[in-house]
């Protein structure tokens, strides 16, 4: 338990990169990138967790309660939404590539370049 969350984050990162490397379809590759991104959230939140802590939101908890680290949560939170728009940008690039070159296979694309 003491290292499992970190190791899971590492596994998600590796499997995501594996998908990126072996992908035959750019849309699939963008999906794999989304998976890889999520490993960072798992790692950040795992680092910020404290046993017996609760969320640092004091609307329904006493202000002296033991809380988990809010800083890493703030980092992960904004990155998730910004990451989604970047995913959109990449998908838009894929649509453009398909229009220009008629394929979304990365290997076929590199052949086009010669």
């Amino acid at each position: 338990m003491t290292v499992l969350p970190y190791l899971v984050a590492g596994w998600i990162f590796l499997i995501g990169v594996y998908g990126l490397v072996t992908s035959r379809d750019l849309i699939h590759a963008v999906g794999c990138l989304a998976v890889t991104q999520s490993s960072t959230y798992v790692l950040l939140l795992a680092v910020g967790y404290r046993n017996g802590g609760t969320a640092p939101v004091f609307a329904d908890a006493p202000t002296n309660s033991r809380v988990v680290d809010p800083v890493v949560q703030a980092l992960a939170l904004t990155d998730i939404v910004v990451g989604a728009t970047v995913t959109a940008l990449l998908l838009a690039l894929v649509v453009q590539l398909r229009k220009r070159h008629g394929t979304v296979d990365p290997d076929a694309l590199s052949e086009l370049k010669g």
Partner: protein
Amino acid sequence: MTDVLIVVALLLVAGAATAAVLNRDPVRQALVLSFLGLTLALLFTFLQAPDVALSQLAVGSAVTPLMILLTVRKVRRRPGSGGDGADKPAGRER
């Protein structure tokens, strides 16, 4: 007890991430990604991060898979045919 929940959620997330990568067809992948988004949201709730869970829920379970599906529909379509099943590539890769 919280630890048990966290461990189960972690294993689910790892499994979903693996399945999302190994499903090579983007349409299948979109549904697995949506599952991954929901399990990540559960994990974040167990890690006492409801804010992040909300964010992941909205983005991971709806917006990202939807955009992938729309891109697939666009990319697989041919003029006049409309459907995405109409253009099975004759010269499939490899």
